[in-house]
C-alpha cells in the first residue's frame, strides 16, 4: 500500500519526511518557523511548558553511559493527523467553536486564532504537545513588530496556536499555479523549516504526486514510521532512522513486545 493511500480522498495530501540520522539538532528549523510564522519570544523562555514552539526539537539519547552514549533529535511540527478506524483528527473533533479544521483538499489541520475561545480542549486531545497556548501577551519590543510577516496573523493572549505546514505558502503557491495555468510545483510550496534545514533532513511535498521527492522517498523506504502510530492518529509526518533505539522511542511498547522490523534510512 502506498503511503498516500493511508489517507482519505482529496486532491493533495501534503506530508513531511524527516531523516533523524541526518538531523544534527542545530535548531535552524525552529528559528525559521518562528520568523516565518510571527512566533514571539516570551520573557521567560526557560519555561518550556509555556513557551510557544510550532516546531519543537526533542533531544533523546540511548540511555547508555559514555563512551556508548548516542544522541538523536526528533523535530516535531504539528503532525496533521487524519485519524483512522472511524476517528476524526484528535484535536479537530473536540474543538467546540470550530476554531480548528481539517482541510479535505490538502489534509492540513488549520487553526483559526480569531475564533479560538481558549478552552484548551484541543491541547488536552493532542498527545504530541504540538499545540501551544498563548499564556502571555507576546512582547514585541523596540520595533520588532515591524519585522512581522504580513502573511500570518499574530496571535493574541489566551488562544491556542500550532504549526500549519506554512499554509500561507500553499495559498501563494495556489495563486501562482492559477495565474500560470498549471499545477502547484513542488518548489513553490515548501515549509520554512524544510528550506532552513542545512543537512536536508526534512523533505516536504504532496504524497499524492508521484513526482514529488517525498513520494519517491516513502516508496523507497517502507520502514518510514510515525510518532505514536499505535494510537491511530494517522498523521502525515514520517521519520526515518537506521538506529533501533531511536525507532523504539517513536512509540510505546509493552516490555515483551519486539520492535517492528526496521528497514529505514
Amino acid at each position, binding site marked *: 500500500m502506498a503511503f498516500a493511500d493511508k489517507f482519505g480522498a482529496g486532491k493533495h495530501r501534503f506530508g513531511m519526511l524527516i531523516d533523524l540520522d541526518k538531523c544534527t539538532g542545530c535548531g535552524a528549523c525552529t528559528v525559521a518557523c518562528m520568523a516565518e510564522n510571527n512566533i514571539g519570544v516570551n520573557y521567560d523562555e526557560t*519555561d518550556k*511548558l*509555556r513557551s510557544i514552539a510550532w516546531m519543537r526539537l*526533542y533531544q*533523546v539519547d540511548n540511555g547508555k553511559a559514555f563512551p556508548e552514549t548516542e544522541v538523536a533529535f*526528533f523535530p516535531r511540527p504539528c503532525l496533521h*493527523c487524519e485519524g483512522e478506524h472511524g*476517528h*476524526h483528527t*484528535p484535536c479537530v*473533533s*473536540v*474543538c*467546540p*467553536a*470550530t*476554531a480548528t479544521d481539517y482541510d479535505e483538499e490538502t489534509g492540513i489541520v488549520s487553526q483559526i486564532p480569531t*475564533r*479560538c*475561545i*481558549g*478552552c*484548551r*480542549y484541543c*491541547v*488536552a*486531545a*493532542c*498527545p*504530541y*504537545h504540538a*499545540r*501551544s*497556548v*498563548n*499564556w*502571555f*501577551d507576546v512582547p514585541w519590543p523596540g520595533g520588532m513588530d515591524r519585522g512581522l510577516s504580513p502573511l500570518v496573523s499574530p496571535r*493574541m*493572549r*489566551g*488562544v*491556542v496556536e500550532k504549526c500549519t505546514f506554512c499554509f500561507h505558502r500553499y495559498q501563494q503557491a495556489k495563486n501562482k499555479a492559477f495565474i500560470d495555468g498549471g499545477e502547484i510545483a513542488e518548489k513553490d510550496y515548501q515549509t520554512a523549516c524544510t528550506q532552513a534545514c542545512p543537512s536536508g533532513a526534512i523533505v516536504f511535498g504532496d504524497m499524492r504526486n508521484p513526482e514529488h521527492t517525498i513520494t519517491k522517498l516513502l516508496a523507497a523506504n517502507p520502514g518510514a514510521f510515525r*510518532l*505514536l502510530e*499505535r*494510537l*491511530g*492518529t494517522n498523521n502525515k509526518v514520517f521519520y526515518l532512522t537506521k538506529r533501533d533505539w531511536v525507532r*523504539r*522511542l*517513536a*512509540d*510505546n*511498547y*509493552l*516490555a515483551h*513486545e519486539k520492535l517492528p522490523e526496521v528497514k529505514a534510512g
Partner: protein
Amino acid sequence: MPMDDSRYWPQGTTRCKPIPFLIWMAFCLLLGGWAVHSATLCLWKGLNQTAMNDFFAFGVWIVVDLAIIALGAGAFFTGFMTYVLRRDELKNIINAAVIIGFICYSGAILMLGIDIGQPIRGWFGFWHANVHSMLTEVMFCITTYLIVLIIEFVPLVLENRQINKVPDLAFFAHHLHRIMIVFAATGTFLSFFHQGSLGGMFGVLYARPFAYRTGVAIWPWTFFLFILSAIASGPSFTTLMVMLTEKVSGRKLTTHKVKMMMGKVSGYLLTFYLILKGADTLYWANVTLPKMGVSFWDMYQSSYGIYLVWLELGLFGAVPAFLLLHRRVRESYGLLALAMILNCLGAVTNRFVFTIQPLAIPVLPFEKWQFYWPTIPEWGISFGVIAYGLIIFSLAYRYLPVFPQEVELNK
C-alpha cells in the same frame, strides 16, 4: 429593632440573630473578595496567573467544575424521582436539591468564564458550534439546564413571606409549581446528556491512553459512567448539605426517613456504578491499554500513583456503597453522613483523576511525567465558588420556605 429581619423568615420558623448571620456573611464575602481579586488578576494579566501550562491544559477549575456539576446532580435526579416517579416524600428535600443544583451550575458557568483564555468569545461555542465536540453539547446543556434551574428556583423565591403577599406574584408562583413536572422532565433530559458528555469529553480522547475508552456508537463508556456516578453522589451531597444546615442551625429540617431514602438511592446507584466501573477498568487495563503499547501500571506513576485507584474505588467507592446498602447504617445519623461524605469524595476523586491524570502522563516515550499544583489565584477562585454557594444557600435557608417539614419537626 432596626436590624430585625424576622418578618422575612418563613412562617412559623426562627432563625439566628442578625449579628451572627452578618458575621457569617462577612466571612463568606471575604472569601468572595479573594475570588474577585483572583479573577481580576486572571482576566487582566491572563491565565499565566495559574499553574496551567501546555501539559496541564486543564487545572483545578475544571476539576471543581466537574465535581460540583456531579454533586449538583442531586437537583435533577431528585426532581426526576419527585415529579416523574412520584416519590412524594422527596418533596421535603426537593427545594434544597434545586437550590444546590442552581448554585453548582451557576458557579460552574461563572468559573468557566474565567477559565477560558478569551472569555469575550465564550458565545462562539454556540455560534460556530462544532456538533462533533462533546464540549459543545456540554455548553448547550449546562446553559439551558441553568435556565431550567432558575425556573425551578423562582417559585421558591416568590414564596418568601413578604413577596408572597403580592397577589400576582403568589398566583404566578403557585401556577409555576403546578407545571413543574415539565421542567423537572426537561431538566432530567438535559442533565442526563451533559453529565454524560462531560464523561464523553475524556472518553473520546483516543490519543490519551488514560482517558480513552471504547463504547457504543458515538458514546464512550465514560459517558454512561459519569451519569451514574453523578446520580449516585448527587442525592448524597444534597442530603449532606441539609444535615450541615441542621447542625449549624440546630433545627431539624427533614425527617430521617427522607435522608434514609436519599441514602438508599445513593447506595444502590453507587453499587451499580461500581460494578460497571470495575468492568470498564478491567477492560481498559487488559484490552484498551495494551493495544496502545502501555500497561495499567504505566498509568500510575510519579505523584499520581496506584493509591488513587484504591482511594477512588475502595475507600471512596466500595466502602460507602457497602455502608449505604445497610439499613442499620442508614438509620444512624452519623454513619449515614460519613457514608455520604465518602461517596461525594469518590465523585470528586473521579473527576480529579480524569481531568489531571491524563495530562500528567507523558504519551511520547521521550517526555517526562509532570506535576500540577494550583497557584493562589486558582485556589482563590475555587474557594470563591464555594463561598458563593454558601451565601446563596444561607440566604435561601434564612428567608425562603425551603423545608416543608421544618415547622412541624421543631414544634
